[in-house]
């Protein structure tokens, strides 16, 4: 009913636009309420933030590989103040690590990934004219931009950006006496994240409402493409968990500004005996990880959704086990809420609680395994077409496996004792969520670029980009596991301390750190190919056909011109599931969703 009602209303709307209303530059490109434009705004902002975060990582990688050596590159970006003589200060190292993590997790992989693709794909793939609320959608982007600007601003504060790690554990983050970045830098971090959470919530609510109410005629929940399922579940996770981070941040702000003691107790810092008593730093960790763990899946699930679509399309086969894929997304989403304390096995939390979380955490491996095997079976006896998007989707499955299996070690509390907070953890989460999500995002950009900009990206540059990226990525993170197994703690400015007691380990770490940094630089340079290809193709790429990859989903039935309201005439009606590739008895190897069932044809 709802879908039908919207159809009439939406149709009317689009007529209004075309007949009486010419969009100005401002309403079309800046304060746009069109979901496609907002998606592109998210993408552009996220690409910029991603480049910044990558640059930060190269800076601290230089320090790790060549500790104490002067570098023009470092001094160019950090200046005399933060890198006297081209060697970065200890505090700045921590600042770079913190902001790198924050931007990557929240701004690139949450705002950028979900924001971009939920916006662009939800209305297009469910057959809606736009989001449920175009205005809220616009607000969501503008909040995102404000929070991005605040976060970048914090890099230029005199006392430095936040320096307590991206998890900003108090008391370190609460006490400016403990580290210089916990002054104005941390205040800006908290304000930025508060605005970011508002953006994310507004966006997520909009996505949920849109998916539930604005599906076109015939688009039942079990005919939704897996991308939409992924975005839908992601939005629900976001709505349930982000407010908890807001409360954590709010209490931290109170501790910092109002002298409360939510997280502080019995502290003497910088020679001052504080009066706060009775708070618990563990409370913060519980609140933070109650978001923090679902956040991993907020980052990962959209990437898995995108790759499901890309792999099915380019294998010319239905995704194997469509319902199992939905089921595993639901299972992962549910479990993601009851595993948070596996980040806290050695924080002094009750060990019995720890054993409960071991159990729930390891359960996640089951739906994850189902997803991996389903992807692999989708490839089996397919007819694989190697678009750049397909390469990235396969890369994602590989990193999801490689990063996933090390999670089994970390989830095991007894084993976590020895590798907690070492580089093994850093390697694990970079592979499983960083690389997988980034690969999913790249795949998405290559695959839907024709829908976004009406032009094609260059395929050969895409190939070069993929192969450099995956070699660079594994080159960075494989050796990192071994640095961690050797026991190297994370967030160390350098490992000179090992010189005092174990020179052998010191040499091993230094060797591996050089390898890692070299690969990181190669991978970073590889991204220039993407940036060039991306911007060049927006302006000069060949004009795209309406359905370049021969996809079945509804977005490929829209015209190339990307009109407001998406479809010029009536909304399409859906007659089948989205994965009718290479169906026996048909000449063509794909049947779009809006094609009625043939005489005697059975739905899958």
């Amino acid at each position, binding site marked *: 009913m709802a879908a039908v009602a919207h159809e009439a209303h939406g149709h009317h709307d689009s007529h209004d636009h075309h007949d009486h209303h010419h969009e100005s530059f401002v309403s079309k490109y800046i304060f746009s309420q069109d979901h496609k434009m907002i998606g592109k705004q998210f993408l552009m902002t996220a690409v910029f933030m991603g480049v910044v975060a990558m640059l930060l990582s190269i800076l601290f990688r230089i320090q790790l590989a060549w500790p104490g050596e002067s570098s023009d590159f470092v001094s160019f970006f950090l200046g005399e103040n933060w890198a006297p003589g081209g060697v970065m200060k200890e505090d700045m190292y921590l600042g770079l690590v913190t902001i790198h993590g924050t931007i990557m997790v929240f701004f690139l992989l949450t705002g950028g990934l979900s924001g971009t693709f939920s916006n662009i794909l939800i209305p297009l793939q469910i057959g809606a004219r736009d989001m449920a609320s175009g205005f809220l959608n616009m607000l969501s982007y503008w909040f995102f931009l404000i929070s991005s600007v605040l976060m970048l601003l914090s890099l230029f504060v005199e006392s430095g950006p936040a320096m307590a790690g991206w998890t900003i554990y108090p008391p370190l983050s609460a006490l400016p006496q403990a580290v210089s970045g916990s002054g104005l830098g941390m205040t800006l971090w908290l304000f930025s994240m508060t605005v970011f959470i508002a953006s994310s919530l507004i966006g997520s609510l909009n996505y949920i409402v849109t998916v539930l109410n604005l599906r076109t005629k015939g688009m039942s929940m079990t005919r939704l493409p897996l991308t939409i399922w992924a975005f839908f579940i992601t939005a629900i996770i976001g709505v349930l968990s982000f407010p908890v981070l807001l409360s954590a941040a709010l209490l931290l702000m109170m501790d910092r500004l109002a002298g409360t003691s939510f997280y502080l107790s019995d502290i003497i810092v910088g020679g001052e005996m504080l009066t706060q008593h009775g708070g618990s730093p563990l409370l913060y960790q519980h609140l933070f990880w109650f978001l923090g763990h679902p956040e991993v899946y907020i980052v990962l699930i959209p990437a898995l959704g995108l790759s499901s679509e890309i792999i099915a399309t380019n294998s010319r086969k239905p995704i194997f086990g469509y319902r199992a894929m939905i089921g595993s997304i639901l299972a992962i989403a549910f479990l993601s809420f009851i595993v948070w304390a596996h980040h806290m096995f050695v924080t002094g939390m009750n060990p019995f609680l720890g054993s409960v979380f071991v159990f729930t955490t390891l359960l996640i491996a089951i739906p994850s395994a189902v997803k991996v095997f389903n992807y692999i079976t989708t490839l089996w006896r397919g007819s694989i077409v190697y678009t750049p998007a397909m390469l990235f989707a396969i890369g994602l499955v590989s990193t999801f496996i490689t990063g996933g299996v090390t999670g089994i070690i970390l989830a095991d509390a007894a084993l976590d004792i020895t590798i907690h907070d070492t580089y093994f953890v850093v390697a694990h989460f970079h592979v499983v969520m960083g690389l997988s999500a980034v690969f999913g995002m790249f795949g998405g950009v290559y695959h839907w670029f024709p829908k976004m900009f009406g032009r094609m990206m260059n395929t050969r540059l895409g190939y070069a980009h993929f192969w450099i990226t995956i070699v660079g990525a594994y080159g960075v993170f494989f050796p990192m596991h071994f640095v961690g197994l050797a026991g190297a703690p994370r967030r160390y400015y350098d490992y000179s301390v090992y010189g005092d007691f174990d020179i052998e380990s010191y040499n091993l770490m230094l060797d591996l750190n050089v390898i890692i940094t070299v690969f990181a630089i190669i991978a970073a340079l590889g991204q220039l190919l993407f940036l*060039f290809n991306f911007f060049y193709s927006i302006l000069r790429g060949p004009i795209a056909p309406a359905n370049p990859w021969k996809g079945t989903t509804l977005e490929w039935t829209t015209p190339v011109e990307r009109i407001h309201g998406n479809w010029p005439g009536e909304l399409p009606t859906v007659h089948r599931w989205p994965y009718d590739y290479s169906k026996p008895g048909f000449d063509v190897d794909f049947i779009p969703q809006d094609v009625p069932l043939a005489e005697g044809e059975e739905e899958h």
Partner: protein
Amino acid sequence: MVTKLVILAVIVLGVIAVAQLMRVYELSSKLRNKEEGEISNRDNRFNANMMLIFMVVLFGGFIWLMLKYGWTGRGDAASVHGREIDWLLNLNFIIIVAVFFITNALLFLFAFKYVKKPGVKAFYFPHNNKLEMIWTVVPACVLAVIIILGLKSWNQVTDEAVPESIRVELFSKQFDWTARYSGADNILGKFDYKLTTDNNELAILTTATLDSAIYQMEFGAMGINALESKLNDSKLMMIPEEREKMMTDLGRKEMLVRLLYQMKGRHDAKLDAQAWDDIIQKDTLYLCKGKEYEFNFRSKDVIHSAYFPNFRAQMNTVPGMTTRFKFTPDTSTEEYRKYKKNPKFNYVLMCNKICGGAHYKMKMIVVVLEKKDYMKWMESKKMETFKDKYFATVAPAADITPEGVVDGDTTQVAIPAN
């Protein structure tokens, strides 16, 4: 110099990339009769072959890293539970490395084999309940084994320490560690952070330290009296911020001193003995081979993490609470040096939770001694208990004794030297 070369290389690469792109663009324009988005068979084959090559490189790289760096940095565990953890870690590693090889091999081999071939249609295979059942149940069974073994070890490691285990406190602050041995009675003295003074850094609670803390708070160089007189001195010129700061400080100290008086009211002097025999030890932590230790961890300022990589032990130190971890070192430093073939090797306690700028320097050397050497060392510490050290730094003229101030009026007598 190096950076300049790198920058130069970047520019050159960029130019090459642009030129290449132009060429590709022109070529593809010539072949415009082909539909956009169509991937040529040559490109498909190229990528399929690359998948195979990449798989070989990936596996080769992994094996090379494993052989070259696999266990060299880690070394054998030097504690009883550490050996068990390592056994479990190896078992888990075998499982996950097998999964890593099998699934990645399937992925890349299928990606290689099933590349599009002219005239071959993909196999329509939407689902198969039996297959899906298999790869739900098999991982579940493997995980059951992992969970059961993991929890068994976890419960043992985190179980209560045996009563005869030696109690040692590790006190952390930016950026060093201090150990406190429980002394002859094997009981650690009580503490409260408000008792921190220059000669009682660990804030140990005894009647004397309590009195001294109150005295310092009231009459010390920056005590309440001094602050009040400064604030009331009309001749003293102060910038407003400084005055503000001083007033906050005064408010804080008044509150703290009230709490100290309350503590004094509740204090039981009989407990003093537990504290006086404690032994405070900086720089190096000495442990006895084969003895179980229960470590109590404390933090003065922010969260740190006590990380003993060789003993496979780790626990965060959290301000406002005491955390615990127990282990039994079973290899002496000498033995481990022989095994490592490195006469300069030492065990270590490091900080493994970001705690500020010098986080990476925060460490304490750990030495595990054979029993007789350990007893000898303990003997040498007999005359350096907390009591001895504390009163060595108090001016002999003061009437302060282990039992507190003799006449009980703190405000007039006890005058620690610093």
